[in-house]
């Protein structure tokens, strides 16, 4: 599955978040391509899931978005994203 992490700049926070999500997916044996992007470029992309902070999450329309509380705290990120990532995985395997 394709996961896109998004922050305002696309060079710091979203990249760190992407690395954390990659680690989490690896630990859970989930096959995922994680990419990072700034908010504007993200509009033109079509990933299976967008991961970003609440303020930006609200601005996406017609996309599957999950809001995270932290860009770098792995425990919080795991709590916020793992269920939905697993759900998408199950759906794709059907």
């Amino acid at each position: 599955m394709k996961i896109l992490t998004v922050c305002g700049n696309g060079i710091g926070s979203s990249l760190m978040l992407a690395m954390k999500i990659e680690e989490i997916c690896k630990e859970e044996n989930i096959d995922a391509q994680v990419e990072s992007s700034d908010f504007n470029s993200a509009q033109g992309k079509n990933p299976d899931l967008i991961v970003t902070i609440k303020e930006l999450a609200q601005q996406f329309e017609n996309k599957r978005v999950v809001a995270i509380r932290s860009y770098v705290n792995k425990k919080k990120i795991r709590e916020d994203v793992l269920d939905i990532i697993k759900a998408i995985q199950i759906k794709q395997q059907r």
Partner: protein
Amino acid sequence: MIEKLFNSTTVAVNVKAKNWEEAVRYGGEMFVKAGNTGRAYIEAMIENIRKMGQYIVIAPGLAMPHARPEFGVKKIGLGLVHLKEPVAFGNKEYDPVDILVFLCATDKNTHINVLSELMELIEDEFFLKQVRGGMEKNAIINYIHQKACKGENK
């Protein structure tokens, strides 16, 4: 690689700042002095924080100010500022901030390795504790250098 980016121009301790803006300006000036960015980058970092500031506070007491490459970034850079007195950024969970890690990058892809090394550093509780305990500038630079070299030998 980060050991090449944290150097005597981009690391400062015992810095006095009245508020977050002064603290960010201080780090921005270091980048200008070191030739990493032009002055526009300072204003861009501040503007970013005004817009969605609290998210740059990424861990307890630790903020990572940065802005987009097109705001005058000349070459990739990292900076570290330890404040004498902490300042508030408006982040309920992680304020007040006394360690600022500055980042500037020329594009999104060239600095992935740098960022991954940086993440190891800012998750190094021992290091952060030492910095907060008054670690000297040269000791900080040496610590980062040694940590990076150990990493390469892994």
